[in-house]
């Protein structure tokens, strides 16, 4: 049989017909943009007029831009707080929920509901809760002798307030993942540990935690990627302020591209963001995979 016939053979043809719509769409909206963003980063482009060649000047500018450097620093501070707090907090909550106690369904619903709450609604809601003058947060904290705080309006507190708000919004998803992983731990493993005389802490530390490690690795990588990309909640609350205190990388990227129309410069920022995301993910997966315990 000639090779041409084989390619036109029915299974080849059917295969391509089946994947064609998805492939065209992913090429147009997934693959072409990757090449294009590299090209853009080498251009001066205002999204309207014909672009001009810029060579590496966008990158050269980027390296010396203190505003960009600060946005990277803030993003990393945010990520370094958000990831351990949300993943660690979710582990604790999941362990508490993984039992047959009364009201369990209610507790679960309470923890899961923010997952369905959009980032925009979360932002508007927290603007109100954390309002320095009339907000209920300052009222409740005042009851225990704390505050009043400026929260989003205080440059020294805004980023931490963003951390608190986003942990509230994302915790439920992590808890769902951990509960599914806990469900997967066979009871006889725990019984065996108990028979061997392991205490509760030892069982947790040496049996449960290792069995949860694939879920932990997934959540750490996933949360890190999301934290490095945080934008919505900041746009709706602080708009990167006050005094740039919450201008993270994607906010800077958005601002450069769609407010200042420096699309070439913004493309360079986007590629640096990609590089940072890639380095973090690869590093976490590399370190994680040596420690993760995959049960067969």
């Amino acid at each position, binding site marked *: 049989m000639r090779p041409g016939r084989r390619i036109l053979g029915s299974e080849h043809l*059917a295969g391509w017909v*089946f994947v064609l719509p998805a492939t065209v769409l992913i090429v147009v909206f*997934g693959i072409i943009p990757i090449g294009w*963003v590299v090209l853009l980063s080498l251009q001066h482009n205002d999204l309207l007029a014909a672009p001009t060649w810029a060579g590496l000047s966008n990158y050269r500018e980027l390296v010396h831009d203190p505003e960009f450097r600060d946005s990277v620093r803030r993003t990393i501070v945010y990520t370094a707080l958000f990831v351990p707090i949300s993943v660690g907090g979710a582990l604790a909550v999941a362990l508490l929920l993984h039992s047959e106690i009364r009201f369990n369904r209610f507790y679960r619903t309470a923890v*899961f*509901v923010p997952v*369905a709450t959009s980032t925009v609604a979360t932002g508007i*809601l927290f603007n109100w809760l954390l309002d320095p003058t009339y907000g209920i947060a300052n009222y409740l904290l005042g009851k225990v002798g704390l505050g009043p705080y400026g929260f989003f309006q205080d440059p020294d507190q805004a980023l931490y307030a963003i951390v608190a708000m986003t942990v509230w919004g994302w915790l439920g998803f992590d808890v769902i*993942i951990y509960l599914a992983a806990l469900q997967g731990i066979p009871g006889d493993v725990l019984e065996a540990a108990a028979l061997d005389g392991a205490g509760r802490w030892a069982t947790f530390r040496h049996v449960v935690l290792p069995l949860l490690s694939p879920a932990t690795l997934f959540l750490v990588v996933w949360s890190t990627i999301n934290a490095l990309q945080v934008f919505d909640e900041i746009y709706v609350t602080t708009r990167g302020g006050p005094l740039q205190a919450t201008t993270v990388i994607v906010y800077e990227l958005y601002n450069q*591209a769609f407010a200042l129309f420096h699309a070439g410069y913004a493309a360079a920022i986007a590629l640096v963001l990609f590089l940072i995301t890639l380095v973090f993910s690869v590093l976490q997966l590399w370190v994680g995979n040596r420690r993760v315990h995959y049960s067969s």
Partner: protein
Amino acid sequence: MRMRLPFSPRHLALVPISALMLLPLVWMFVTSVETLDQTRHFPPTLIPSGFHWSNYRAAWDQAPFGRFFVNSLIVTGTAVASNLLFCSLAGYAFARLRFFGREVLFIALLATLMVPFQVIMIPTFLIVQHLGLVDSLGGLIAPNLVTPFGIFLLRQFFRTLPVDLEEAARIDGCTRLGVLFRIVLPLSLPALATLGIVTFLWTWNDFLWPLIVITSTDQSTVQLGLASFQGAHDTKWNLLMAGNVMALAPMLIVFVVAQRWFVRSLASTGIR
């Protein structure tokens, strides 16, 4: 002797945690039925003097929430339907059919998963601009018609199904499309539900892409409309919270009613 509590000590932690998660939403509702004066008072008015439902009427009148909902429904509905269709077709081909270039294509499509949307949003905007779809629902929908994640999810699921049934159907003269729609998909409802629910949540709550593509109010989605509603009514918190409740209520109700499905779907995106 150890004192024993009459209830599990877990409640001591779970009650405050639940309160922390729920109180913001409860407070959102309480504020939404207060008068403007009550919201501008410190200490806050914890129990409103009756339900001022007129805030909802006022919010509804001052921004076209009905229009936002219709737009969001169109965008989300189209994205869910097209993801289910195209990802099924592609996922089935990648799982079962042997065709030229299959492995390379699969890896290439999957590789795009590694690139976050934020990285490619500028060229994506330029592509939508070239297609003449800026400031239209089409522009919102186009990049969301198919996700590599969906193809991967369905392919993995299809591969766990026994192949015998499909072969028997083929021998009986069923077409490949017939096999997919009559045999494979009815067996794949859990995976399809997962893809549908995740696409629904993601598209409905998406903000960044509408923010970039849409400029006019009558093309806004719920999320974008809500954000500009906030911009227009700065500190009228009762009005803003009424808008928030209206925007959130449908999703929250669906979520609580179908919680089991949502949870199972989200859980299966993480594990494996």
